[in-house]
C-alpha cells in the first residue's frame, strides 16, 4: 500500500511540475465559468418569465434546472480534459526509460497501475473541486439541496474514473503522447455516442444504452444512487485497470 501511495503521490506531483495540471485546470475553470454564467442567465430569465405568468418561483428548482444541466455540460468538458491527464502516464515512463525502474522494483504491475490511477484521479478531483466554487455562490443566494449535489459529484468521479482507466490502458500501448491523446479521445467519444446508432436498431438498443457511459450518469445528477450504475462504473474501471496491467505484462514478454 505504501508503494502504491508513493506512485500516486509521484504522479500527482509530476502533473503539477509540468504545465499539464495548470492548463487542464485553467481551461476547465474558464470554460466551466462560461457555462455557469450561460446556464445561470437562462435560469434567471426563465424564472422571471415564470414570475410574470404567475406560475410563481416555487416551481423553479435550482437543482433540477440549474445544477443538473450545468453538470451535464461538465461531462463534455471532462471528455476533452481527461485524455490530456492520462496521455503521458505510461507513454512518458517508456520514453524516458523510468519504466525500467518501476518494473524492476519489488511491486506488482497491478500496484503500479493502481498508483497511477489514483494519481490521475486525484488531479481530476482537484479539477472538479474548482467547479465547487461557483456552486458555493448558489448556496449564498439560493437554497439548493446539497444531497443531490453530492451524488452528482460521486457520479462525476466514477464517470471520470472510467475514462481514466481507459486512458491508462491506451497510454501503455504507445510511446507517443499525441497518439495516446487522440486514441483516448476517440474511444471516449465513441462510448459517448454509442447510443446514437442503438436507438435506431431496436435489437441492440438495450445493450448500447447499457454500454453508454453517459446514460449511467443521469441518475446520479438527479440525486439517485442506483447500485446498478455504481456496479457498472466500478466494473468498467476494474476492467480498464485489468487491461492496463495485462498490457504492461505483455510488453514484458514482447520486450
Amino acid at each position, binding site marked *: 500500500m505504501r508503494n502504491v501511495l508513493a506512485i500516486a503521490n509521484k504522479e500527482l506531483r509530476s502533473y503539477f511540475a509540468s504545465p499539464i495540471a495548470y492548463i487542464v485546470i485553467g481551461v476547465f475553470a474558464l470554460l466551466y465559468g462560461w457555462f455557469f454564467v450561460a446556464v445561470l442567465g437562462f435560469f434567471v430569465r426563465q424564472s422571471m418569465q415564470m414570475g410574470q405568468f404567475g406560475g410563481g418561483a416555487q416551481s423553479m428548482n435550482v437543482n433540477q434546472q440549474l445544477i443538473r444541466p450545468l453538470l451535464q455540460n461538465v461531462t463534455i468538458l471532462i471528455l476533452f480534459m481527461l485524455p490530456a491527464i492520462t496521455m503521458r502516464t505510461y507513454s512518458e515512463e517508456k520514453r524516458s526509460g523510468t519504466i525500467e*525502474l518501476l518494473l*524492476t522494483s519489488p511491486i506488482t504491475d497491478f500496484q503500479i497501475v493502481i498508483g497511477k490511477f489514483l494519481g490521475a484521479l486525484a488531479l481530476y478531483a482537484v479539477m472538479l473541486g474548482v467547479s465547487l466554487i461557483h456552486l458555493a455562490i448558489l448556496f449564498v443566494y439560493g437554497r439548493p439541496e446539497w444531497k443531490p449535489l453530492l451524488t452528482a459529484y460521486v457520479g462525476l468521479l466514477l464517470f471520470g474514473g472510467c475514462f481514466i482507466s481507459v486512458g491508462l490502458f491506451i497510454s501503455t500501448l504507445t510511446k507517443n503522447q499525441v497518439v495516446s491523446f487522440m486514441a483516448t479521445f476517440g474511444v471516449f467519444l465513441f462510448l459517448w455516442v454509442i447510443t446514437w446508432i442503438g436507438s435506431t436498431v431496436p435489437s441492440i438498443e438495450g445493450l448500447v444504452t447499457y454500454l453508454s457511459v453517459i446514460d449511467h450518469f443521469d441518475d446520479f445528477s438527479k440525486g439517485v444512487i442506483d447500485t446498478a450504475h455504481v456496479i457498472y462504473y466500478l466494473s468498467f474501471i476494474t476492467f480498464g485497470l485489468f487491461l492496463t496491467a495485462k498490457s504492461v505484462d505483455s510488453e514484458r514478454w514482447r*520486450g
Partner: protein
Amino acid sequence: MIEVQHLTKRYGRVTAVEDVDFKVERGEILGFLGPNGAGKTTTMRILTGFMPATEGKAIVAGFDVFDQPIEAKRRTGYLPETPPLYPDMTVVEYLDFVGKLKGLLPADRRQRVRAVMDRTRITDMADRLCSKLSKGYRQRVGLAQAIIHNPDVLILDEPTAGLDPKQIIETRELIKELSGDHTIILSTHILPEVSQTCDRVVIINKGRVVAVDTPENLTARLRGSETMYLQVDAAHADAPAVLGRLPGVTRVTESDRRDGLVGYEVESEKGHDVRRDLARAVVTSGWGLLELRPMRMSLEEIFLSLTTDETPTATEDGAPNA
C-alpha cells in the same frame, strides 16, 4: 549468489540470448563483455525481472526471478543503460521516491538517502533537479538509486558509457568499493574496464557465451605460443637464422625496420622461456640489444578472436559452448 541456467530469450523469430549459463559468487565482480547487440542488456533485464525468459532459469540471491519476483527484486539493484531519472524531481526527492518503491520505512529511508548520496558523492547536488544534472552526475544518481535498499546483487548496464575519462576512473573506483558489500554484474564493451575492475569475465557474442574466466587466464589461455619482440641496432642478414637455431624457437619474422633499428618477432613453444637464450645469442653475435619483451595478446585481440567466427584458439581449452 547469482545462478543462470540455460537462459534463452526469443523475440518472435529472433533469438537474443541462447542457452546462457554462468554463476557469480558472493562479493565477486563479473564483467559481461560483448559487442553491441550481443545480448548483454537482455540477459540483465531478465536477471532484474524486467522481462521473463523464454526458457531457462535465473536465481538471484536465492530466489528464482520468475517464481518469486518480488523477493528477488527486493535484493537486486539495477542501473539500466540510461539512468531512470524523473526530470522534475530533485536528487533527494528522487532517491526518497525510489526508497519508497523499494519498500524502505520512513526513518530508515532518510538515513539511507543520506548514506548513498555520501557514498556516490552527490551530496552537493542534493537539491538540484535531475534534469539539470550533467551526464556524470546522472550516472552517479543512477548508481545511488541502485544501492539505496542495500541489495545483495547489483546489476549495472554499461555504467561508464558516455562518461569522460576522469569520470570513468571515478566510477570504476566506486564500483570496486561497492564490491565489498554487493555482488556485482556489469556489462561493457570497453575492454580495459574488464581487466581493471572485474574478477571474472563472461564473453558473450550473438547471444551465446563464448568464454568464462578471469581476465588473466583468458589472456594466458589464448596465447597458443609465446611471442617475444626483439630489437637490435643494425640489419644483420644472418640474424633470423641465428635466432631460429636456438632451442624452442619455432619462427622468426622481421616485424619492423626504422632508423637502422630492426625488430623481430620470435615465436617459441608454449611454456618455453627463450629470453635468456635470445639475449645471450644477441650479445655473443656482437649486436646491440635494444629491446626484448614478451608480446602479450591484449584483451582486445582475445575479444576479437573470440567474437569473430570459428577461431581455433577459442575452443582450445574447451571454452563452454564454443
